[in-house]
């Protein structure tokens, strides 16, 4: 089984219901997990080297290890699934949520057991209506089947699982802002320094994990850490749901060994660029990552290898920039997104991003000045790490600083010729 996460997913049919999921081996991982000590599961996940697939890549086992355990631990404890997929160009969690909701539920129960959580919430973006319907059905079936609620499978372990439908805003994907949203507040990030594993939702121990991250857990429990590591290519273990969007022949998502080279995903799976187009760059894992250039395509798409080309794996869903799309316009679009989605809580982000966006829009529209490039470069420093509460603005600066470096000539041409060389209708000049 080399595609554990998507083994039951067929795009042309309904997801497995409880009975078919059980017949396909579903909930066996949960049965096994309940025979183990909770800490043994955390240990397995640590040994497997599972890392956060929401973009940050933090080791999952280490995150869980910070949760207070034992009879004196504060209660209730919470597990929160970050199903607020909203990173531009990212469409992988949708596949898992819509395609195999029982896998998600089983993953939640196993993971919640590992940290001995009492309550779990799925924080789902409101636009994922189909996922909401399917999850709701799977949760009801799981309660009826004894996999949720009191005394799960007569183990003495209890877990309540609730689906929370979000009312919007990208910032909710930031873990601490998400917790504020769940508490019914404005979704602004919380101050760093207090670990949510110790004091999160309502001041209780809380773990927030991405959908894809958690979906790996039942398979690790069932097949072991060594099996998981062997799934990957090279140093990194497991599989990854990669995606490609932009002007390629077959945009889509594929579950492949972690560490599959970018070129292979782009050419063998996405079919390469459409006829007549040449590649200029790739944002490898959503809008908050740095450009990878055509000559770097042989890089393996895993956390450590992506750092060697100055970028990040991020969400692993690539956005392709072709030579008939204006890089300045693309960056103006990205920064428009980040400026709009800033929660406004801290000044560099609230005031800096609109400035960046307007400067880019002006250059794109042929109203730029040479000194604008230095202004933009300055912002990439002052909106970078260390100046803000959360990662939104630093993330927004990653494509910009690499874009300024790699597409300098395109910026200068816009300013020199006082127009967009790709023409006014290459995308959206309306921002």
């Amino acid at each position, binding site marked *: 089984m080399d595609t554990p996460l998507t083994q039951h997913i067929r795009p042309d049919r309904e997801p497995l219901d409880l009975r078919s999921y059980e017949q396909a081996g579903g909930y066996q991982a949960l049965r096994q997990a309940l025979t183990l000590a909770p800490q043994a599961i955390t240990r397995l996940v640590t040994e497997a080297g599972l890392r956060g697939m929401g973009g940050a890549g933090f080791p999952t086992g280490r995150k869980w290890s910070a949760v207070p355990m034992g009879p004196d631990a504060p209660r*209730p404890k919470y597990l929160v699934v970050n199903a607020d*997929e*909203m*990173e*531009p*160009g*990212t*469409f992988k*969690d*949708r596949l898992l949520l819509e395609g195999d909701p029982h896998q998600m539920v089983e993953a939640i129960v196993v993971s919640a057991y590992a940290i001995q959580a009492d309550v779990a919430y799925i924080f789902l*973006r*409101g*636009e*994922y*209506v*189909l996922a909401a319907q399917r999850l709701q059905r799977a949760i009801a079936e799981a309660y009826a089947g004894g996999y949720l609620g009191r005394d799960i499978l007569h183990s003495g372990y209890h877990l*309540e699982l609730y689906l*929370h*439908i*979000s*009312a*919007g*805003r990208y910032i909710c994907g930031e873990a601490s802002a998400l917790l504020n*949203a*769940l*508490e*019914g*507040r*404005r*979704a602004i990030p919380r101050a760093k320094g207090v670990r949510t594993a110790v004091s999160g939702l*309502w001041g209780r121990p809380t773990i927030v994990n991405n959908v894809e991250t958690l979906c790996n857990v039942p398979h690790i429990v069932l097949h072991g850490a060594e099996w998981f590591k062997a799934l990957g290519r090279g140093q990194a273990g497991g599989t990854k749901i990669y*995606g490609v*969007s*932009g*002007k390629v022949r077959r*945009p*889509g*998502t594929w579950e492949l060994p972690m560490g599959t080279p970018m070129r292979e995903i782009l050419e063998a799976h996405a079919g390469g660029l459409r006829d007549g187009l040449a590649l200029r760059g790739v*944002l490898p894992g959503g*809008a908050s990552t740095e450009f990878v250039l055509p000559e770097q395509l042989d890089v393996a798409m895993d956390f450590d290898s992506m750092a060697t080309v100055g970028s990040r794996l991020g969400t692993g*869903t690539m*956005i*392709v*920039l*072709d030579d008939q*799309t204006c890089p300045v*316009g*693309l960056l103006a*679009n*990205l920064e*428009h*997104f980040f400026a*709009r*989605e800033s*929660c406004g809580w801290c000044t560099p982000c609230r005031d800096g991003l609109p400035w960046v966006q307007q400067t880019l829009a002006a250059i794109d529209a042929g109203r730029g000045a040479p000194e604008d490039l230095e202004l933009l470069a300055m912002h990439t420093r002052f909106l970078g790490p260390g100046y803000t509460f959360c990662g939104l603005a630093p993330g927004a600066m990653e494509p910009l600083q690499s874009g300024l470096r790699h597409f300098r000539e395109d910026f200068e041409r816009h300013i020199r010729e006082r127009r967009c060389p790709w023409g006014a*209708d*290459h*995308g*959206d*000049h309306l921002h």
Partner: protein
Amino acid sequence: MLSAEEREEIEAELQRYPDRQAVCIDALLIVQRHRGWVSDEAVRDIAEALAMSPAEVDAVATFYNRVFRRPVGRHVIFLCDSVSCWIMGYGRVRAQLAARLGIGFGETSADGRFTLLPAPCLGACDHAPAMMIDDTLHGDLDPERLDALLDRYS
């Protein structure tokens, strides 16, 4: 005043959280589902039901883009304006909607049929450009498809 139905749905949500304020966002969405939008009166009613101040509820209501503090048309179009859709022709879709419905972002067509709003990435990047009308996702939009689609909504 909250209707009996709204009150009942809000009470049901209270089971899922340890305190009343946590239900605030759900309550806003419940009221919006019944009335189409969230009026000042609705904000006051929710505040009373959850033992919050109207200002606190409004601070939450105005933060989230899927809570409508003004009336909307019979259908709401959420047009994805994020990067993959932008590359794949979001600008053309937006221009066509403007020409056909006479509206830009934040506006409602004169016949009250559609309100147009921007949406962050809808997670349908392999079918860009994409948009949602009410609860339904529509991808691979091109001029003919878009025209036919709009005709289906009255």
